[in-house]
């Protein structure tokens, strides 16, 4: 279960689902594009109630098609989150595992701060332990390896937002990706950021019309592509374009993870006391409040 301890530092799982990897930097036009993408992203993570499916497997290629070389391991989650704090950039969220059966009921409360000086906070509830446990999760800006999201190939670095000042941004070209017109934007971290990231360079493909990431290629310091993110099922949700399926391929370990948003509901009214430790342990309370959220959606 340890991977649960470290992951989901910003319970804003949706961040990762929705779009752009964190890299983004300074050249004006490129920066404007990425800022617009991030703004849209924040809009869709605020007051949100989502159901998410995370699937991971070793992959291979058959008949020119990527395929899983083993049965994917599937985790299903329900997640509720709100943004708060200065400029609404901090996030408080609760995620509860609904699948697989062996992990059903595991819950996690996360508070993510945009301020680099403030450590994120995470509490985990495992029914076997019978108590809520604080998890040392550090800060996504720490000089540490990014944490995996629920043991998948997605990491907190892949879902991080902001810090555009720490990257040199260049629009390489305007091209076609997945049949869409895109900006191909290269992000190279500055010296300080380079110490904190495992990516020496990232190339992102941003849909010119919908401002959503369609693809990202991540390179290491040897300019070897180590990961690739592919987005699909782009749909309009509350006037914001959202990629409802994201697949991260690890080209070193030949493993991939798919993050699918089964349900996305934004703009709902989340009671303040719902995003507390009580929700992890008090199942009667949690289910009652979740039912109220579901009624808002219906």
């Amino acid at each position, binding site marked *: 279960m340890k991977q649960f301890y470290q992951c989901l530092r910003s319970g804003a799982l949706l961040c990762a689902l929705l779009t752009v990897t964190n890299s983004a930097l300074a050249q004006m036009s490129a920066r404007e594009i990425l800022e617009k993408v991030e703004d849209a992203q924040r809009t869709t993570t605020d007051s949100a109630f989502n159901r998410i499916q995370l699937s991971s497997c*070793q992959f291979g290629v058959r008949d020119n098609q990527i395929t899983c070389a083993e049965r994917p391991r*599937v985790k299903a989650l329900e997640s509720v989150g709100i943004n708060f704090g200065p400029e609404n950039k901090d996030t408080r969220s609760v995620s509860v595992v609904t699948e697989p059966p062996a992990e059903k009921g595991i819950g996690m409360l996360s508070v993510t701060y945009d301020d680099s000086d403030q450590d994120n906070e995470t509490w985990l509830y495992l029914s076997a332990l019978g108590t809520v446990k604080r*998890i040392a*999760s*550090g*800060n996504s800006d720490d000089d540490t390896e990014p944490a995996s999201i629920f043991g998948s190939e997605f990491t907190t670095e892949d879902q991080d937002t902001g810090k555009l000042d720490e990257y040199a941004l260049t629009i390489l070209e305007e091209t076609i990706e997945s049949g869409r017109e895109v900006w191909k934007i290269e992000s190279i971290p500055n010296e300080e950021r380079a110490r904190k990231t495992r990516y020496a360079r990232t190339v992102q493909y941003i849909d010119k019309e919908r401002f959503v990431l369609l693809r990202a290629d991540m390179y290491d310091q040897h300019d070897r592509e180590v990961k*690739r993110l592919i987005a699909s099922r782009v749909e309009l949700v509350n006037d914001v374009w959202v990629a409802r399926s994201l697949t991260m391929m690890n080209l070193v370990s030949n493993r991939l993870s798919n993050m699918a948003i089964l349900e996305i509901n934004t703009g709902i009214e989340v009671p303040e006391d719902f995003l507390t430790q*009580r929700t992890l342990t008090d199942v009667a309370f949690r289910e009652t409040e979740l039912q109220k959220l579901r009624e808002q959606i219906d």
Partner: protein
Amino acid sequence: MTDVSRAPRSSLFLAVLALSPVGFVHAQDIPDNIDGFDFDSINFGDDLFAQPQSNTPAWLEPFTFKLSQQLFAQVNEHSISRVDGSSDRKNAAIENSRFSLLARYQNPFAAGWLLQASAQAKVYWPGDYEYRANDDRIDTEFRLNELFVQRSTGENSVKLGAQTVVWGENIGNSVLDVINTSEFRDLTIIDIEDARLNQWLLVWDRYIGNHQISSFVNLYPEFNPPPVRGSPFFFESAFNLTDYRRDKALFEIGSQMRWSLAGSDISIMGAYLYENQLSYSAPASGVGDAQSTANDYLLLGASANRAIGKLLLNFDIAYSHDILVNVLVTPTNPADAPYLATETMNKLGATLGFEYAIDNDQSIMFGVAAEGKLAPDAQLASNAALLEDEVTGNALLRYSNNMRNGDLQLAVTLQSALDAGSVLGSVSLNYTLSNNLAVMGQVIATSAKKDSALAALDEDLRMGMTLSWTF
């Protein structure tokens, strides 16, 4: 005794081989050098992870089932030396061969209401120590773990029924984790969360802002069960160790307040409890059932944690008032033989531990628990002496590594008495074969000094596997 060197070990190997993921892998399809592969030229099927629609009937939704088959053996043939100079031969033999069904039910049947239950049924096959203790017949056991109803409304939540209450920040060796009884029946159970037994409690939680006040009343306190005959922890005592004879009404009551600060959680607690382990003395008649004493005492405690980056510090402290201790009394008349007795004393205990996330997949946890009698000399008569050390405790070290997106989990545990009188080392590997199927292999080695309570486990080496299906 069944000889483990025969069929079971080869069966184990074949079982693991048959369940390996080889059957799913199409190695020829995976390019050896992914760097040279042109991903731009391939297609990506978006339906790759489409899951079949669940056809579980609605009435089954609240249930989770886990079927397990466990096979464990002590594999080291050796002799154990005793304090009196004698020795016992220990053969390699199967200890655990058992099948279990764990059923869990969780149903929020109405707004603000929850009914939760879990129960376990076990079948002990030939070779299992429970089978041998049952005159070489297949034995069965049923145990109700949890059964409670919960009502939550506003700032309050009340739970009534069989449940656990866990205090303390350190997992596995907290001096505050004393409310539930526990049963370490054999060495396949080394985690406290697996050993806890539920108690019948009324629990009231009140949530006020950032504070949680949790109180409980136990009107039927249970005690740690005596060792099961045939198990590795069983010892032949001079008298029968029976359950407590309830000739008076017993109750326990306690309360804890918990709140969070930036980077920390803090708790304070107090309780009136009975020691979980009964104190036994010889029957008055000299034969038959031992006399058991349930000793009540007061507990005051506090716990806190502090997160510093990837490091989490945990601290628990407990003061126990009027704990029973065994003493040896030497009569003033030299003609009389020394005899055993009990005295009440106060005790102070603390657990200090840390958890550190080495990286994304690896973590390490360490905790030291120590308990000492307060001013024992002032409490004891001049002709009485403690039978155990003034300070006792243990250290616990755990390392875990999650590989292949958590499908393969390695756990290494080392546990030792503070005086290193007994040491347990365990290595386990858990492999998730599918969303439902998992197999775990485990090796456990124990070492103990002759005068240790675990002397009978010296130089034991246990190996085994558990296959489980959860749905």
